[in-house]
């Protein structure tokens, strides 16, 4: 697998990050280069008269270039947290800053733009459009970003090359294995050069070999400087990350550092 790490796109991203770093240092002198800043984030769902507190007082920070796993059993509120981190939903209390931008009170329209520019999603169900070829799937976020066709194709092909699928660009999802489909999804998450890659149970639907492939790919992306947040309920998967944030009953259980123990290069 080749890594065009010295690509222009990635350099420009570094400059972007530097900009974010400057901003956040100015506003939060204590925290440096934070991609995710959650302060007392809470989410309450109302179902008629019944109130369900899915999250209460969740505060944590994830810095640029970190590889963090968010772990918890089902019903722990990790899906809700993932939706908030992914700007698919807004918290009912507290603030959430993504790459220095407060997204807690944004309109649906603004959230769509933030998702488009800042976040790359990898879903458990891959969520590829069955009727489009691999590269057409990868270019989708760029379509909504208003990038012209030629550039979109170039960038989509580069992203597919990066995940090792340069020879599968014209294949439709149905013609690819599960592991390959998830790699297409990873390429789609990469293509906009987001500040954050948010992977929700990315290995949940894969056999162990493909799962290993996808985790290796994540690792590689991390090493090339990406910020990755991985949501999972499997300890094996969480072990791939540097740090694990545990969540239970809508509250954090505390974070542990894993990177040094795992003897990473």
């Amino acid at each position, binding site marked *: 697998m080749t890594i065009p790490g010295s690509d222009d796109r990635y350099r420009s991203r570094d400059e972007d990050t530097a900009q974010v770093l400057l901003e956040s240092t100015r506003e939060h002198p204590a925290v440096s280069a934070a991609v995710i800043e959650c302060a007392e984030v809470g989410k309450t769902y109302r179902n008629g008269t019944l109130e369900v507190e899915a999250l209460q007082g969740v505060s944590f920070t994830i810095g640029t270039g970190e590889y963090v796993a968010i772990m918890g059993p089902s019903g722990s509120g990790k899906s809700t947290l993932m*939706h908030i981190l*992914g700007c*698919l*939903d807004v918290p009912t209390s507290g603030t959430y800053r993504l790459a220095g931008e407060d997204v807690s009170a944004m309109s*649906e*329209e603004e959230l*769509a*733009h933030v*998702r*488009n*520019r800042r976040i790359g*999603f990898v*879903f458990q*169900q891959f*969520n590829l*459009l069955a*009727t489009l070829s691999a590269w057409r799937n990868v270019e*989708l*976020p760029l*379509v*909504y*970003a*208003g990038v012209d066709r030629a550039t979109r194709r170039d960038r989509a092909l580069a992203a597919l090359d990066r995940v090792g699928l340069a020879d599968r660009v014209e294949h439709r999802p149905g013609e690819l294995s599960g592991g390959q489909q998830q790699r297409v999804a990873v390429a*789609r998450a990469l293509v906009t050069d987001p500040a954050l890659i948010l992977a929700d149970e990315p290995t949940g639907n894969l056999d162990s070999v493909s799962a290993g492939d996808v985790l290796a790919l994540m690792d590689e992306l991390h090493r090339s400087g990406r910020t990755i947040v991985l949501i999972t309920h499997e300890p094996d998967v969480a072990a791939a990350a540097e740090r694990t944030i545990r969540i239970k009953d809508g509250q954090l259980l505390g974070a542990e550092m894993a990177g040094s123990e795992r003897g990473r290069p």
Partner: protein
Amino acid sequence: MNILETFRTGLEAVVTHRLRSSLTVLGIMIGITAVILTVGLGEGAQQQVSSDISALGSNLLTISPGSTTSSSGIRGGFGSASTLTAGDATALASKTVAPDIGAVAPTTSESETLVAGTTNWTTTVVGTNPSWLTVRGRSMTEGRFIAGHDLTTRADVVVLGSTTAEELFGVRDSIGQPVTVNGVTMTVIGVLNTVGSSGSSGSSTTADQDDQAIVPITTASTQLFGGTSRNTVGDILVQASSSSTLSAANQEATAELDSLHQITTPTDADFTITPETSLLSTATSVDKTLTVLLGGIAGISLLVGGIGVMNIMLVSVTERIREIGLRKALGATPRVIRRQFLVEASVLGLIGGVLGAGLGVLGARILPHFISDPITISLVATVGAIVVAIGIGVVFGVYPAGRAARLAPIDALRSE
């Protein structure tokens, strides 16, 4: 995302769901075809009626016996079936009495059986004078028309319409041949030009102008048609000297007949004068009503097609909840999603409209060979129909598109 991209995405969705799209398109297509054909049929009928009526002769007034009462219905004159006489016709023909009247042709007609050798043919036998040819705007293909001396001598001569001549004599030359009518043997002296069979349809107001036999009115009243008074005539056809003097001619004829028939109040009149134009407007208004009625039915089928679009778009939204959720997660704003589905609906409308218009135009070319009715397709109607089809797609696409746009991305992504 610019409009071209949106259009491409919409088009792709239509192409992807081929069967469903084509069924939806079919609904719109049938509606548009029906509208185009019914409107075309109505317009064609109107045009045919106008040309039929103008074929009757130009600047024509028809004076018929009896009067129309204000409430409709015809009142007959007393004592006799006809209140018009040859004297009336002679008076109207006078230039001093009615300077604006060009020609006057009294007519009397009956259905009679003509016999030529062993062939029988029943047709309308019209007794009239030489002016009939001008008044009716006809000409001769063969031989001559009845002349003044035929009237004075009550000559046993007959002029045949082209259809009548063909029925009686086939391809043989009919001039000089004997024809027996009511036991009177008459000689064929001429054949009228063909005005084109106005056919059975669209022309209920006119008889077949190519199937008739013309005889001198004096011969008709004294030798052929028994019973009725020899002096009365059926209709009197009056031709104004020009189209601008038609109403003047009408007034002169009314005044003259009023004085001849000693009529003081118009409601007592025992005759009716019908200008060609009123015949035309009556006929076209009947056809218009029919067109509106048929167009309405066609419009309903178009509405059903539109509901089909809405239905299929709602199914499409439900079926593609995950796709919508994904697109939203990747940065599609509600507006972009709404536009995508609207474009999809209007593309369905557009395809249905274009195909429907094509089928309509094709039908307008083919159908007249089977139903003998002319169909007139105007460019305006065709383009209008396509625009309406797109409009239907948009109108019936608004609700489903709105639903798609309102979907929350998480709910959409979660759905299995």
